[in-house]
């Protein structure tokens, strides 16, 4: 069965098209990433899948259930970690877990064990009796991930789970997600605008921009599709550069070669693997290699290839002049 299935999903806000026909298939057990800049429609897509928004057109099914017609059923099957921190500051970690377990109608016996297990896994066992208000951002996020899993959902959906976290907390979250995925055979859908997050976690990645999916494949698959390869820079002395370039071009796996003063520039499919052969060859010609620099192809390159620009930084929020920040969005615009 498909864990998530959407066909030509469209969402419009008046004139603005947030989603312009998105079709996705995520099989059970997959770790699927949605990569896109802010405002690309990731959150809109997530909110449709989690029944918070109704699509303008098209259909979406989660574990075979329609998100509009069977929304209550879908909500019981999914665990969600929204983008904003949504844990109540006035509750303790344990109370948060307990109250959500009750929302899902879990029995007392079931609840206690599951909550202890999850809090232990996310490393909050010792802080379970403390108010969430005393937690750091990373701790709150971990609690929210545990909360999303309390009712043993079939699908875990995370919207930018590491946004605003320090690098260390970010790595902790990644490790956790890997562990939960292996332990519970979860299907995980994650949105992010961090390249490394998508690269290190996801089986498959969809690049979404302006409400449309522009590319969808595994991370290596996506990289293969684009012409920009790994690039190697070598500082070389004691060798005829013209000759070195001609020689390098003939090596297998190398696509192009050129030089600039005493720097040899080589582009290769697998840069790291090409380096030893290049260095050995240059030594054979009597040259001396002073330095080697490898710039590996990243998802960023893939992103630029498909969207024509780097992943952009967050746009400034529109704020009402009269009413100040944080007013209803309808008024603020």
């Amino acid at each position, binding site marked *: 069965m498909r864990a998530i299935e959407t066909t030509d999903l469209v969402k419009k806000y008046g004139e603005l098209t947030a989603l312009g026909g998105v079709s996705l298939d995520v099989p059970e057990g997959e770790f699927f990433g949605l990569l896109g800049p802010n405002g690309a429609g990731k959150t809109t897509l997530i909110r449709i899948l989690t029944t918070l*928004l109704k699509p303008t057109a098209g259909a979406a099914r989660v574990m075979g259930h329609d998100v509009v017609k069977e929304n209550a059923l879908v*909500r*019981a099957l999914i665990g969600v970690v929204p983008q904003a921190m*949504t844990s*109540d500051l006035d509750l303790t970690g344990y109370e948060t877990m307990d109250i959500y377990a009750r929302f*899902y109608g879990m029995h007392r016996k079931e609840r206690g064990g599951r909550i202890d297990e999850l809090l232990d896994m996310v490393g909050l066992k010792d802080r379970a009796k403390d108010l969430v208000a005393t937690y750091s951002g990373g701790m709150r996020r971990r609690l*929210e991930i545990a*909360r999303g899993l309390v009712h043993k959902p079939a699908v875990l959906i995370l919207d930018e789970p590491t946004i605003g976290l320090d690098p260390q907390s970010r790595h902790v979250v990644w490790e956790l997600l890997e562990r939960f995925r292996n332990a519970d055979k979860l299907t995980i859908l994650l949105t992010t605008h961090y390249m490394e997050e998508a690269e290190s976690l996801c089986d498959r990645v969809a690049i979404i921009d302006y409400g449309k999916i522009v590319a969808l494949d595994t991370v290596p698959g996506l990289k293969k599709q684009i012409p920009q390869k790994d690039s190697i820079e070598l500082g070389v002395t004691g060798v005829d550069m013209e000759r070195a370039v001609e020689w390098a071009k003939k090596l297998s796996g190398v696509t192009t070669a050129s030089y600039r003063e005493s720097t040899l520039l080589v582009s290769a499919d697998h840069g790291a693997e090409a380096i030893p052969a290049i260095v050995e060859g240059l030594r054979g010609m009597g040259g001396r290699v002073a330095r080697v620099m490898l710039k590996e192809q990243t998802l960023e390159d893939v992103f630029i290839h498909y969207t024509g620009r780097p992943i952009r930084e967050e746009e400034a929020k529109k704020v009402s002049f009269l009413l100040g920040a944080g007013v209803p969005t309808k008024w603020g615009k």
Partner: protein
Amino acid sequence: MAMSLLMPIIYLVILGNSFQGELKNLPVAVVDLDGGPYSEKVMELFRAVEAGPATLDIMQVADQGFAMEGLREGVFKAVVVIPGGFSRDVMRRNLSEIGLYLDNAETISALTIRASITGALSALKDEFVSIREERAQMRLRDIELYKKIDYDQTLIPGVVIMAIFLGAMTTGAFNMVMDKFLGVEESYFLTPLSKTDIVMGLIASGLLITTFLALIVLFVGSLISGLFFWGGISFGAFVLMLAVIILSTLGLQGLMFMIMGRINHPRIVGVLGGFLNVILFFPSGAIYPIESFPGWLKAFAFVNPETYSVHAMRALLFKSAGLQAVQGDIAFLAVFALISVLLGMLVFKRAL
């Protein structure tokens, strides 16, 4: 912003009209058991007050029993009884007395009525003196209907309803507004909880907290003003009191959901809160009698749930009233609570 400018102006209109310097149109029943020339004279003087400064609204009632019942239920603020043989006594220059029964559960009205009636009767005395050139022994004997009640004690129902209002304002629907503001509500919209679960849960928590608040204010207020009602009212009356408090709270909780259901910034609630307190509290009759309001404000008081809460609590606390005297209030409060909770649920959107 626009609201914070507009609201003070609305306060002016409401406060200005509910606290007019002089009280007006206080309903007074006159039972004329004499029917003689002097009792007619008295009636004329009363009519003059009614037509002139309009302090009183005179109603001539034949049956003293009916008039007294009206007084206890709050239809009349006072009953004047002109006893049989009044004219004869005046003519014989005997001691002649007019009885004035006052609803002293409303101190301000009672004082005004007494002053107004004493004034009217003094005119009769003067006239009498000038004709007969002899001083008649006539006096007004006023009888306070209930045991002495201090002014601060009469404010207790108002203070309790204000506690209920503030409780309703800062629990229930306000928690929802705060959750929206902090973005927390998204996470419970993601659970299988239905709209009814969410609204009812918030109202139930608000109801519990506010009921306790109101009871604490009732006890502390009574201690401060020296009312010690627990010695004076029966257990049954206390249960009715509790019912009034719970129904008032429920009604206001529902009303808050109706008003705040779509609001997602606490600042707007702050502005609305002050405004609602004024427009619900002052026209409720907690401080000034409703009878003195202009027509439009009277009409508002008629649909204002706080009016009924204040009326019922006053009857239960000061008039040893039973179910009969407050059943109308309780019925109104129950219907109001039902409608407001249902509408509140309609207004609430289980969506972002």
